[in-house]
């Protein structure tokens, strides 16, 4: 019984690892052969392949880590930190920590309002504002919504897929510039007639 389960795990993780390597190979092949001649399209394909490789590789990596074949290179001597995290797990962050996060969120909002009154290029301002907003969203999700204190498998289920889906919306966006230039061209040609 126990043996057959181990065999099953070995096969499943082997398949997932192969898929991950395959996705990496497609990404590499696209980069080498097309050499980004397709512009955004190539970049998008490579990003999707890399994300796919990451998603496929998560399970084999966790499995190998649990079996002790690989170790976490970032672990260092964090044994003490882990102990406190385990203790906090039941209640999430302390109240003091939450007040600090609240203060940080207010501070970032103040920076945003201040930035809105400096004459900046609209694109630059949009990038800065979105960057700050993503930091704020991450703080809210991690601390207020307790994501930081959930099990790793839960975080890996919710967060990456949400990021991918939200990014997929942005694919349509460059079309808006095309519509604008087409409209301007059509008004110019109308004036010429």
């Amino acid at each position, binding site marked *: 019984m126990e043996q057959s389960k181990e065999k099953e795990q070995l096969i499943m993780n082997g398949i997932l690892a192969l898929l991950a390597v395959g996705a990496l190979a497609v990404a590499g092949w696209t980069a080498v052969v097309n050499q980004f001649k397709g512009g955004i399209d190539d970049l998008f394909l490579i990003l999707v392949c890399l994300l796919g490789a990451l998603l496929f590789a998560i399970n084999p990596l966790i499995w190998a880590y649990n079996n002790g074949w690989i170790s976490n290179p970032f672990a260092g001597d964090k044994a003490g930190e882990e102990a406190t995290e385990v203790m906090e797990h039941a209640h999430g962050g302390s109240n003091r920590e939450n007040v600090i996060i609240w203060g940080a969120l*207010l501070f970032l909002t103040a920076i945003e*309002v201040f930035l809105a009154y400096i004459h900046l290029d609209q694109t630059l301002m949009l990038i800065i504002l979105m960057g700050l*907003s993503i930091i704020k969203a991450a703080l809210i999700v991690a601390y207020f919504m307790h994501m930081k204190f959930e*099990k790793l498998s839960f975080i890996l289920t919710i967060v990456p*897929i949400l990021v991918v889906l*939200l990014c997929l919306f942005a694919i349509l966006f460059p079309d808006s510039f095309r519509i604008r230039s087409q409209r*301007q061209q059509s008004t110019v040609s109308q004036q010429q007639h």
Partner: protein
Amino acid sequence: MAEAKVESLTDNEWSGGAFPYAVGHRKLGMWLFIMSDSLTFCALLIGYSFARASSENWPTPFPFYPSIVFSSVMTLVLLSSSLTMVFAVSASSRGRKSAARKWIFATMFFGAAFIVLHLIEWGHLMDEGLYINGLPDEWAERWPGSTSLFGSAFFGITGLHMFHVFTGLCYLGVIAARIKKFTHEDVETSGLYWHFVDLVWMFVFPLIYLMSVDFTPH
């Protein structure tokens, strides 16, 4: 006893544990709802950005007072409501239900304040002549080529967000009224929803208000 049982169920994901994520089914359901709802708001915000980028001209009409002052105060109020909700969940996790109820009432107070401030702010804009299908004549002259898409985007996005805040108020009201009968997970789940509403405003505020600030003094 019960906790030991849950522990054994979460022990191994591969053997089909009942709680492979160490999260109850209500909380998992709320997370899935939050994912789908964030896609709704993302679609609206991308649609608004699309309309703005493809338009010849887009009004940037919000003066420092009242619009920016009101929306900044609304951000402060919503962030504070999130903090009180965190306190409510933390009190509930320690089993102090009446303290949790008081913190939820504080959250509801801030949420109601947000809606009132937002309606006043809407009133200012409607007085100027902004509607869901029309721009004020003055704005149409100042920003030639701008369309009524401004009003649709503004009222559509802020309206849907306000509806979420209102729904959250009802949700929290039910939780607070019957808190003795609800488990800690129920309180935590309502907290997740409330923080999500706050999170959405963190994107609506810069995109709708701060990107449309009127620099010119009147």
